[in-house]
């Protein structure tokens, strides 16, 4: 590729999501990308279809945002449920999108971050614009939800459909979605100070929700803790399952070695206190938690529950993987990392170096290259 620092023209870029500021990974990603692209001189506009259910604090944004259902409608910021009214309302809102798109300069890009939002975008006039649809979860996870059919239906005509990994893309292509390609998520931050890996602590960060598999983490810990009585498992996060999980913890006799840390706003701080990071999820997309731990030089042990996981962790080189659900195996992986400081140091250091392939510079470069490619 050419070494020129700004090889791409400045573009009008629309990021269209279900909501501008819904609490969760997709919105965080959208605004991270919006900032990065704005810094590169692009004119970014973030569009949400409806107001969020749970809002996220965004602070001052250096780019405009628009919510289509802004509360002035009869249904109070929601599209009507069914039938002709819904159709009419969708068309009306799509017309607003069309107006936004028409005002854009040539070479403009529409990035649809969630398939639900695509239902409005496909009703709008996108002539002359490049439309990119995205799915921010693994193929297998989509497959279990109604999104699977909807992705196949609504993204079929998009100029490109992006998933998180090559492996996921191949699976979608296998379903006939021939416009699929992939784009990894950028690393949210690189802490200046890596973890010293001195505390005898294994850390997990994630919502206390079925998907994160904390129940399996406790089963795992029950197998490994007796061999390492001086170690603690710190579980960060809160959620609906907390009570059930604490009951399970007590039943397994782990109260002495498990610390329930609650939700944290200081992820880098939590990771600085970790020597090993563990992830026991049932499903993931391109898990930021692993990337953050690796950026902090903390070696990870994780269930290989999605292509994104083995894309991020190189098994045996900068972390260790176990077959999903196999708690015995995950326990052995943890045991390896907990027993041997040299292995921890080697993998932790490798992790911090290897994760640089997802720096924001690298990912933004790939996006701009894609914009150019789709124009050819």
């Amino acid at each position: 590729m050419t070494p020129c620092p700004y090889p791409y023209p400045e573009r009008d870029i629309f990021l269209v999501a279900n909501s501008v500021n819904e609490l969760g990974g997709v919105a965080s990603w959208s605004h991270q990308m919006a900032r990065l692209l704005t810094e590169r001189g692009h004119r970014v506009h973030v569009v949400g279809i409806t107001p969020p259910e749970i809002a996220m604090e965004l602070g001052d944004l250096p780019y405009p945002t628009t919510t289509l259902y802004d509360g002035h409608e009869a249904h109070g910021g929601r599209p009507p449920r069914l039938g002709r009214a819904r159709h009419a309302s969708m068309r009306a809102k799509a017309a607003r999108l069309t107006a936004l798109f028409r005002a854009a300069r040539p070479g403009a890009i529409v990035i649809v971050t969630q398939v639900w939002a695509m239902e409005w975008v496909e009703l709008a006039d996108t002539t002359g614009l490049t439309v990119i649809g995205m799915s921010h979860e693994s193929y297998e996870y989509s497959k279990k939800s109604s999104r699977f059919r909807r992705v196949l239906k609504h993204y079929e005509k998009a100029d490109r459909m992006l998933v998180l990994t090559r492996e996921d893309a191949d699976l979608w292509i296998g379903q006939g979605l021939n416009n699929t390609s992939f784009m990894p998520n950028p690393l949210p931050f690189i802490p200046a100070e890596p973890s010293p890996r001195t505390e005898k602590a294994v850390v997990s960060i994630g919502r206390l929700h079925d998907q994160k598999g904390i129940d399996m983490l406790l089963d795992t810990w029950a197998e490994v803790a007796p061999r390492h009585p001086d170690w603690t498992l710190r579980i960060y996060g809160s959620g609906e399952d907390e009570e059930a999980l604490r009951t399970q913890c007590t039943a397994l006799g782990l109260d002495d070695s498990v610390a329930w840390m609650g939700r944290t706003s200081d992820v880098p701080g939590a990771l600085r206190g970790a020597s090993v990071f563990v992830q026991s999820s049932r499903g993931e997309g391109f898990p930021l938690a692993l990337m953050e731990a690796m950026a902090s030089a903390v070696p990870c042990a994780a269930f290989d529950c999605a292509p994104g996981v083995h894309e991020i962790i190189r098994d045996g080189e900068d972390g260790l993987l176990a077959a999903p659900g196999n708690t015995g195996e995950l326990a052995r992986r943890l045991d390896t990392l907990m027993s041997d400081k040299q292995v921890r140091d080697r993998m932790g250091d490798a992790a911090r170096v290897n994760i640089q392939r997802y720096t924001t510079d690298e990912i933004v470069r790939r996006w701009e290259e894609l914009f150019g490619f789709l124009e050819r």
Partner: protein
Amino acid sequence: MNVDPRRSPGPEEPHEAPHTAAPAVSVVVIVYNDEARLPTAVRSVLDQTLRSVEVVIVDDRSTDGSYEVARRLAAEHPGRVRAHRLPENSGGCGAPRNHGIQRARGDHVMFLDSDDVLERNACRNMLEAAETTGADLVSGLCVRVHVDARSGKEVKWYPWLYTRTRTLDSISELPDLLVFDTLSTNKCYRRDFLLANALEFPVGIHYEDLLFSAQAYAAARRITLIPNRVYDWNVVDNPGGAGEADKAAAKSISNRRAEIANFTHRMEIHRRVDQLLADRGLAELKFHKDVKFLKHDLVLHLRDLPFRDAAYRQEFAAIARAYLESIDPAAYAEIEPIHAICAYLLRKGDWDNLLPAVDTLTNRDKISAPLVERDGRIYWCAEHLDNPDDGVLARRVLDVTELGYHTRPVGRMFLRNELTAYQGPSGGVGGSGGGGTVRLAGRITNPLGVVPPGARLTGELEFAARRKGVRFQVFRFPVATLRHEGETIAWEAAADLTRGLRPVGIVDAVWDVRLHLQVDGVRTTTRLTASEPGLVTGQLPVRPRLTRLVADRIEPQISSRGHLAFRLVPDKKANALVQRGIHGAPGRLAKSGYRRARAVRRTLASGDTKIRVYHEVFSRLPVKKRLVVFESHLGRQYSDSPRALYEEMRRQGLRFEAVWAYADSAEGFPEDAVLVRRWSMPYLKALARAEFWIDNQSYPLKLTKRPGTTYIQTWHGSALKRMGFDEPEWKLRSRGEQAAQQRTLDRFDRFLVRSEHDVRTLARAFRLKERTLLRVGYPRNDALVRARETPGRPPLAAELGIPEDRKVLLYAPTFRRREQRRFELPFDVERFADTFGDRYVLLVRSHYLNHVVLPPSVRGRVVDVSSHHDVTPLLALADGLITDYSSVMFDYALLDRPMFFFAYDYDEYVHEGRGTYFDLLERAPGPVVRTEDDLYAALGSLQQQSAKYSGARERFVADFGEYDKGHAAESVVDQFFAHWRRT
């Protein structure tokens, strides 16, 4: 310039703007006399999502308007479409494509035929792959689209090569690509790569794609495969509306010439590809290619042989033999036995054995050869085995022991029946005065003398209408003569079809013929194979029931599988009428009604409906006191603890109503119980009404148990491997799915355990409540406890023909999931027999999902006992047990006899699987060996092993079988059924 040099440029000829940048992709579209479809092909390129594409049309001097169409397209799309024409017709695809390569300006080149189309994203996906990996060649998925098929049938072209994106630095990383995907059209080539390597299609020969793609694969420094559909190969199934019927007819001379010419071309291309591979030092690829040639290319031609005359066969064989000489003999070991046999016999020119072999090639389960047993192995034929030059190869190729023919009873054999004579009525067609008799004669293969010389033989010919579903019209004729002639059974029959065969007319157009042979009362069914073309001819009068307007004659025909059938000959005029009816409104109505009726039947028979009936109808009936439903291993066996309980209940003379469920066959199930097929309506009704369920695995998960029913879950073995919620698969399930699973487990009212180990493992893994646990031991093991106290050999030994002086060893490995159903023994069974045959008889019991074949050489020394329902009597008989991780170890230990653990895949099984509850290496009550040699060493002395491990066995029984005291069945009966005793 894009202009035919021999024509002056007209005003419509586009001028290329000199500043136009080179397109990313040039698509070379070749056309010959295809003016109608050319615009569609070109449109598929112009509509690509990648805009930077150009079309280079090359016309192979068409005689229709193709070139004019091409020029018009060029005029309509200046700068994007160019039209070229060859100076004279080349007759192939090579010359026009070569011309296109020269004229292309794009960075990349693709090929498209005028009757096919590109997928919309094809060029963009190809380009993205090429630019990200730097590949010289990108290849994507081609799909054959059957354009005539009503339902738009599509078949992917070697899809297994295209399941994921992958990049190869050399074709030798994926030989299958060169071997199978020989198309040039589903690919995108870097133009510089084509030019630098001077890659061109051969001209003047068919199958040019094979050589071109082989050259390209071999030359490419990097190849990327993408799973994307890129190319639609449109297939016209019925060119000119030719019917199936002509396939059977011998081909005309000119057809034959064309076919032979094609085959010659194919062999020539193969030779050139082989030469290329040799030059490039890719000998290993040649081996893969050989394998594929034997498995696929050759088979296509072999299947046609029975329909060809002797002259064709000779010519074909001469060409094929010359090429077969170049095939690596090691390739024969890589293919299915029947493929190897055919290739070998063809090479030998042994037509007498080849034609029957081709019959098996076409009809896979048919036994076509007499077979011969030599030195304990089964061979396809007796010939060649002792050839001085290649007897060794012959024995390897013709060895069919593994196919297990010798283990099948005659009733389960599908024997070749060669039609040797066919004589229609001499009087010709027309006369209804009894002239409708055909005389048939043939011979049925008698493999391994399965039909003994003195056998009582009867036979009948059966004519049945070919149709799906019920055969409601069947006509039978006796076989007059049956003669045992050693390797064959000769037969003769006469059938008066005019009198005996009464088709309905219209509906049943084709009649299949079968010959049922009764051998001492056992029936085996054959089809009549006509091995020579032209054997069956002529027409016969028949009297259709419905109307003779449509047809009043039938004629014999040969199906594509080579079998004799008869077809009603439609009267042309009447047929037109009928066809109009079928395709017109009345026909549509009748057909849609028929389809709707079938759909209703399907719905009624579906699982969902059955489950609803169970819950909403049967479960509303009152619970029937004293009704007990038994099931073992999902109905596959009459065995295990449910059987032991059942027999105890019968022994005590309890008054109850017994129902046993079976999965496939009721054979071997008790006669004094009501037998119901699993999932049948009677089964569901019995379950809904039963007072007791007694089972060792699980009743259908979706059936709710009523509160009035007591479920006694006996379970089927203590656990070494992790089970239930300790298994990764179960853990991974979502909370909702886990809750649903738990509900099926909570149906257990009682759960039998045989030790506290079971409580810690199974009961915990199934999250069972303490009050459900029944600490009584396994009813099935009562017999083992008794056997330990009863010296002497059970009568089963005599039934199995085991001599008094031999000890009995039982080999019972656990189930292994494998691709094929056949389970390969992990040791050389012939070596075992040779080593220990004079001291031991080895009983082999594979898991009920696996299947094992023993060679005849070990007869009497190694015995397959897999089909025995119940393992317990076998355990009681065995003087020693060889197992790996099977739960029989926990049961057999009760006998206090020597045990051997042949754990050849211990690490894989224990670590890569779901894990174990304890370390077998630490606690096994016998030697754990990893290799065959170590196993044989350990088996040297049973006594020694028995003494060495007696302490370990005692501990093992204490740990895993503490409640197995020999009274489990009685104890269960006492607790639950005591009040059913007759007083």
